[in-house]
């Protein structure tokens, strides 16, 4: 049963891109949507949002840069290592797991570096790839979404985001163990 599911996931991996790209065009044609015009309209809207969120982004990105440059991130890495080892997270994937909620570009850098060092088809290389794909940059999302409507009291949003991140990161390790074990 689990063998079957793993095989199904591999087939999905192979066909996802052509299927999605094809179905977007197909559905647009069927509904007689003018793809190009609609795309341009959406892109214009995106630009306006981009300008509105700049101050929030500057604040968050600065704070994160301080956190990294001051060495606080390295300290945190050393502190949490015993716990994450227990949860089955490979030591090599730990920097990725910690940086992912803080900085999207930072995580991308760590992922590229890890893939270069260990190889894209190694277990570690796959784990960091799945981690990158299965989680969001929580603090960036908080700043962008709440910034766009002017919310300053975010209540439990940060904790929920971090829990979501932790779940996604651990799920990445476990799913990789299961699918790529052979």
């Amino acid at each position, binding site marked *: 049963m689990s063998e079957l599911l793993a095989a199904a996931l591999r087939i999905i991996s192979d066909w996802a*891109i052509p299927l999605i790209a094809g179905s977007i065009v197909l559905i647009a044609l069927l509904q007689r949507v003018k793809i190009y015009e609609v795309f341009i309209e959406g892109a214009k809207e995106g630009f306006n949002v981009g300008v509105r969120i700049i101050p929030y982004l500057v604040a968050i990105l600065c704070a994160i840069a301080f956190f990294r440059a001051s060495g606080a991130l390295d300290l945190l890495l050393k502190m949490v290592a015993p716990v994450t080892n227990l949860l089955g997270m490979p030591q090599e994937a730990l920097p990725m797991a910690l940086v992912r909620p803080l900085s999207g570009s930072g995580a991308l850098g760590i992922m*590229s570096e890890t893939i270069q060092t260990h*190889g894209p088809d190694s277990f570690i290389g796959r784990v960091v790839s799945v981690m990158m794909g299965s989680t969001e940059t929580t603090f960036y999302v908080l700043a962008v979404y709440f910034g766009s409507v002017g919310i300053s009291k975010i209540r439990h949003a940060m904790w929920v985001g971090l829990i979501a*991140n932790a779940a*996604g990161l651990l799920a990445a390790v476990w*799913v990789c163990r299961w699918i790529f074990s052979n």
Partner: protein
Amino acid sequence: MAELQRLNPNKNIASNSMVTFLAMNDSCITLVPATVIAVRSSAGSANPTEIIGAVILATAIGFSVAIVAAKTLQRFPVFRIQAPTPEAQNV
């Protein structure tokens, strides 16, 4: 988010729906992680897209946990909305 803000009685405090919406975004179901595939491809992977299935499954797990977490934490007294809503003031 703008639509949710229209329904929100306290304009500077996040509503429960907003946090749940954000939780869904934090773990957004990624169908095609394009950047990841590009990096893997340029690093010489034999099959750059082989991780898509794993990504979808891992996101689905994260997504479920996120929604449960949002629904659970919103009941905690620490996270209750402090300011009176306009309705409460009128009563």
